[in-house]
């Protein structure tokens, strides 16, 4: 599956559009990680646990989007956008959306 965030797949021609596909995931934090992040909040710096958590969840959201595109019979997703929102205390929602297309 080819993923891009531009209007086309560079170097290829789009032959069919399938419309919007999306994937999302809501993740809560691990208690241990949250505790470590609380400590790290005192001294500042990168919160590796959260970075990992968000990266994993973004992968998951992209995977769901990809599955949906595959079901439609697409072989590429173009114009992908990411967004993050916090729906509840300590939980983050990540979603990815894009247009499923078929390229040559």
């Amino acid at each position: 599956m080819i993923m891009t965030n531009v209007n086309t797949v560079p170097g290829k021609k789009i032959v069919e559009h399938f419309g919007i596909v999306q994937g999302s995931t809501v993740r809560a934090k691990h208690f241990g990680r949250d505790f470590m992040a609380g400590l790290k909040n005192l001294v500042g710096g990168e919160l590796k646990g959260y970075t990992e958590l968000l990266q994993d969840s973004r992968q998951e959201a992209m995977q769901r989007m990809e599955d949906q595109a595959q079901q439609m019979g697409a072989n590429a997703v173009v114009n992908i956008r990411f967004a993050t929102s916090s729906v509840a205390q300590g939980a983050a929602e990540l979603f990815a959306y894009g247009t499923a297309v078929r390229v040559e």
Partner: protein
Amino acid sequence: MGILLQNFDLVIFLVLAVLGYTAGSWAEKKHYRSINQREKELIKLVVVTAEGSFPPERIADAALVSGSVVVSIDYFKRLLAILRNIFGGRIKSYESLVDRARREAILRMKESAKKRGASIIINMRLETATIGRSANKKKSVGSVEAIAYGTAIVMNK
């Protein structure tokens, strides 16, 4: 000793502030040094926010690349920011926080593009979100997440 025990919360507060100040500024300097160095190394890999168009026969591969980081502010700077909230004006400590987060995210994106052998990243987008405990409290920033993503293009030689 008795005075110390009587003002126990004050002592904790001062210890945290000093710890935040020393460890926080040390970590920030170190981070900036590493950012500057890696930016120099990756300067040849061009990142643009425009879409651009390339002749199709020159493109070998195109793929989405992304990089993200969560950076937190230290205790001392949080205090400074709270004080700043009273008088208004620039909050320098938060400026450096988001600056570090964005530059680090862009660097990580560039690193993953370099692994693919890309020569340019087009249509780069940046996004910032606050997560963590303070995300729902609108007043404080606490920690900030920066995501950078774009399309890496591998050219035919």
